């Protein structure tokens, strides 16, 4: 199996807050991480983007929970029921420290749950290393 170049992995960011989204793109820029970032502002837009085929593999999803129209957990349920995308790798990045949110997220097989106030630059460090060594599913 051929491993794609680390910087070809798309970060699919599903986040309603402009500044939180900006914060990620700024950090990518600072660290000269050139991976493409595609952003959706809620679950519905994210599903539309996936359906349109604009999110090309390989990609990972960074998902917020509190969002208008369709929240993160609702999106996750839809995603896991979708035959094309149920194998997607999803990380949660939320302000919620609620035990139920954490539990429900892992019930939907997320790869990790991070709390916004706690991550600072560590998340970028993780992504930086992760993209180098991870093997992600290819389309069949």
């Amino acid at each position, binding site marked *: 199996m051929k491993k794609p170049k680390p910087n070809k992995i798309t970060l699919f960011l599903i986040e309603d*807050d402009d*500044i*939180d989204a900006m*914060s990620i793109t*700024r950090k990518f820029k600072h660290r000269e991480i050139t991976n493409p970032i595609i952003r959706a502002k809620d679950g519905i837009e994210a599903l539309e983007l996936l359906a349109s085929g604009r999110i090309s593999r390989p990609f990972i999803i960074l998902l917020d929970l509190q969002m208008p129209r369709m929240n993160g957990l609702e999106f996750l349920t839809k995603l896991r029921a979708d035959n094309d995308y149920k194998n997607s790798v999803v990380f949660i990045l939320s*302000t919620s420290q609620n035990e139920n949110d954490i539990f429900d997220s892992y019930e939907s097989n997320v790869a990790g749950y991070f709390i916004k*106030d706690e991550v600072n630059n560590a998340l970028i460090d993780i992504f930086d290393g992760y993209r180098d060594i991870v093997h992600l599913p290819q389309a069949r």
Partner: protein
Amino acid sequence: MQTDQELSIQTVEKYNILDADIDKLFDDIVMLATESCDKPFAMVSFIDADKLWVSSQVGLFPSEMDQKNVFCEQTVKQTGLLEIYDTLFDDRTKLNEFVIKAPNIRYYAGIPLINSEKQTLGTLCLFDTKPNVLDKHQKSILKLLAKDVVSQLELRRKNFELSKLIELNQLITKNNPDLVFAKDSDYKILHANTAFLSLFPEKMRDKVIGYTTLEIYSDAVAATFLVQDKLAFEQGKAETIEKITFPNGETRTLFITKTRFEDNKDKVCILGVARDVTEREALIEKLKKSNGDLDEFVYIASHDLKAPLNAIKRLVSWIEEDDCEILSGDSLEHFGMIKNRINRMNMLLKDLLDYSRIGKNDGLPQKLNLQETAMHCCELLDLPEGFIIEVDDIDLILPVIPLELVLTSLISNAVKHHFKKSGHIRIHCKNLAHNYQISVTDDGPGIDPKLHKKIFIKFQTLKPRDEVEGTGLGLSMVEKTLANYSGNIAVKSDIGEGATFTVTWPKLKASSE
């Protein structure tokens, strides 16, 4: 003497012997006395106020005898029989008008009527118009008859008291708004008060006592009644709050207590008392909801306010990062001030959230060491090095989370408001019978007594927040926390004399060791 008489008057009233029917009550005994003792005259007299009055009598006595009965007046002063064989030869009686004139009494024998409490109620006495004497046998009969009079009086008193009690009981039964009833072991109603009976339609009311009445309730309600009844029969007591739909269609919330008891035939029964708590329960429900709403509101408000605040903070730091070299010194200072205000706002929101959560997850009282707890608080506070904290080494039983909140707040205040870079804080605890009295004393600048009230008010600070950072919620939180445990806090301080905050914390029973 005076007090003895007062005592006796009260006694007479208690026996209810001032009634009209008493006049004839002892006629038979008096008759028997004259016949068995072979004396022509006899009477029963009672003490009423400071006089004696004649109740039953055989033979005719002048009506003035009621007022001037010098014979019986003598008798009630002693405990045994008084016998005057010849009144003309007795100093006490020889000049008496009833001796000198008609009916010319020459002989007297009187026995005091003394009850079980050793109170003299009156006399049983015999008279003759010639000198006379009682033989041994007659004396015994007289004593027996006197005893009989007293027993009859005692019975009368008990009856009288009982009838008063019954009257009172009837009044209670009629007027008690609680539903009171008694059931036997077949769940049949033995007794019900007016309030209970009035729940039933008028034509049904004679079908309540002696019936279970369960058939007129819905199956579900009847089942809960039976469950509670059984519980009361088995365990002696059952308590429940239930919504009940009455036979008249009304639905009320009742607090029902059922208590097992044995009737006078040793049959096991239950006594039920149902109090209508509909309004109270509705109010509690309303209050719970509005408290819940308030908690939720505070939580959401402080949570949702934090997000834009953090966004502002980030934007400001991005501007600094990106354009720091083109900003003027003033602008950079202003940015610093913006960030400082953002931090303050964050602290306020955190405190507000903490304040709303006080008492939510306090945990149970447990055995803890005051010194260890205080030191743990100090570690988290990250105090400047110059401060010495001295704490009593004493074991207490208190919930640890609220105690830490109180200690942290008081220690942090003592350090924060200190005018020097070093200081001495002493935490002392008095273990009183019902309270712990924990005092935190500092050697700081002290607080003007005029401001003592103000420091406990929410959001009040004594110095501008730009000089001493603080939300003004610290002591309010301490006060609210203590209020949850019926405790309180007081301050003793004056300018230049340091301050002592004394916490009074009522002792709680440790629920588990």
